[in-house]
């Protein structure tokens, strides 16, 4: 069987990421052979030794499919976003970080100065008597050393370049990735540019198997460890903030299957501009009081609204970082 089969060229890159998205690609398990049968992986820092210069030397639009995971935290991430955009036919923001900023995006609740202070001076394990901080340019006698510039704020991929598709999730459900991959390989008609792929337009509650009633009235919100879950009733009805109503389905409700509340990693449902605003709206509706003082007390029990409603989406929200 030496018959030449036209393979697609594929790249996977990570910006400010934890590596989980790359692992979710590996989670295709034995199907990886099928992937390799249909695609040449031309760039994948976690697995291959292709250098940036090799990518820069590729012809424009020569990569058929690029999965960009991770947020844009520094000038290196942004540079590779620009390069990969130029070299790729289809650029996919893969995972919550590239889509909305993800967990690294929570750093937008602090300034760069505060991040540096904590990381290089104040943290318990740091010994830095000379108060040294990373510099983008350092002159030594052997020459000039450079480091990427750490940005003032974490950005989403589409804030630095044009993105064709968004494949959400932290990490994306591997089955959804396979569906998208097969669509590209088989040359199926792709959805319009800018679409969210590998997820449904319906909210997660649609997919969730827990028992739900219309009686969503809450006198106090609890953090998950503060209540004994009964393992069958809707978590919201038990007073646990679950992002289900404001989040796309597609993940298979995997957090709820594990008896944890939804964190919103699949992002807001169709046509919603701000990921957390709808959840704030929903939570407020559930507050079981018309008395202002009592309402204030119930709101107090939502300990960290920014970190709860925008856990994976601070950079992708309307007020995308804390202002001074």
């Amino acid at each position, binding site marked *: 069987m030496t018959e030449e089969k036209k393979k697609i060229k594929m790249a996977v890159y990570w910006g400010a990421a934890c590596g989980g998205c790359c692992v979710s690609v590996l989670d295709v398990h034995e199907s990886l052979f099928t992937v390799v049968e249909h695609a040449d992986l031309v760039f994948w820092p976690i697995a291959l030794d292709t250098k940036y210069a090799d990518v820069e030397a590729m012809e424009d639009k020569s990569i058929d499919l690029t999965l960009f995971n991770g947020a844009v935290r520094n000038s290196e991430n942004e540079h590779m976003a620009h390069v990969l955009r130029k070299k790729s036919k289809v650029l996919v923001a893969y995972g919550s970080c590239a889509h909305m900023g993800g967990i690294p995006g929570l750093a937008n609740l602090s300034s760069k100065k505060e991040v540096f202070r904590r990381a290089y001076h104040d943290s318990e394990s740091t010994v830095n008597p000379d108060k040294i901080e990373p510099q983008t340019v350092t002159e030594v006698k052997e020459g000039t050393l450079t480091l990427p510039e750490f940005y003032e704020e974490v950005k989403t991929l589409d804030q630095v370049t044009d993105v064709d598709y968004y494949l959400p999730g932290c990490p994306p459900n591997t089955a959804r990735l396979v569906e998208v991959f097969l669509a590209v390989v088989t040359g199926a008609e792709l959805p319009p540019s800018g679409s969210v792929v590998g997820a449904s337009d319906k909210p997660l509650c649609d997919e969730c198997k827990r028992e739900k009633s219309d009686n969503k009235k809450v006198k106090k919100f609890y953090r998950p460890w503060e209540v004994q879950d009964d393992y069958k009733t809707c978590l919201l009805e038990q007073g646990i903030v679950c992002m289900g109503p404001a989040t796309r389905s597609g993940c298979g409700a995997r957090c709820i299957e594990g008896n944890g509340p939804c964190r919103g990693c699949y992002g807001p449902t169709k046509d919603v501009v701000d990921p957390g605003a709808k959840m704030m709206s929903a939570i407020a509706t559930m507050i079981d009081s018309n008395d202002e003082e009592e309402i204030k007390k119930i709101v107090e029990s939502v300990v960290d609204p920014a970190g709860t409603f925008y856990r994976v989406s601070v950079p992708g929200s309307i007020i995308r970082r804390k*202002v001074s």
Partner: protein
Amino acid sequence: MSYEPKIVGFLCNWCSYTGADLAGTSRMKYPSNIRILRVMCSGRVDPTFVLKAFREGADAVLICGCHPGDCHYHEGNYKCLRRYHVLKKYIEQMGIDPKRLRLEWVSASEGKQFAALVEEYTQQIRELGPCAVKEELDKGEKKKETVDADLAKTA
């Protein structure tokens, strides 16, 4: 020119907008700093509207609805009250002074009170100074020139 704040007002159709209208038809004067948007109910004010107003340069947002118990839709104003407190907590975390968001009840007959409210709130915001959201967030927007300059380095 001295600083003049921009205030976005969301007024419910049934009470507060009618109240503001009464202030107008009674020829009462109040500062033109407020830009009024009529909504059918204060319960219609989605948190997105408020955040978008701040993002686009509002120095403050004033929401007015019917007095408790008077809502045309029975409890829209209570929903608004609850959202307002959640939002206030959130904007404070994002570095926006919670005083920049205010909820007041104004009935259809309270034209005078509405004019006084706008007068007093405008003065308060004037003293607070401009809201930094638009200016700071505009700085970080994607710019095509930076993309071209960055790619030129590798060409």
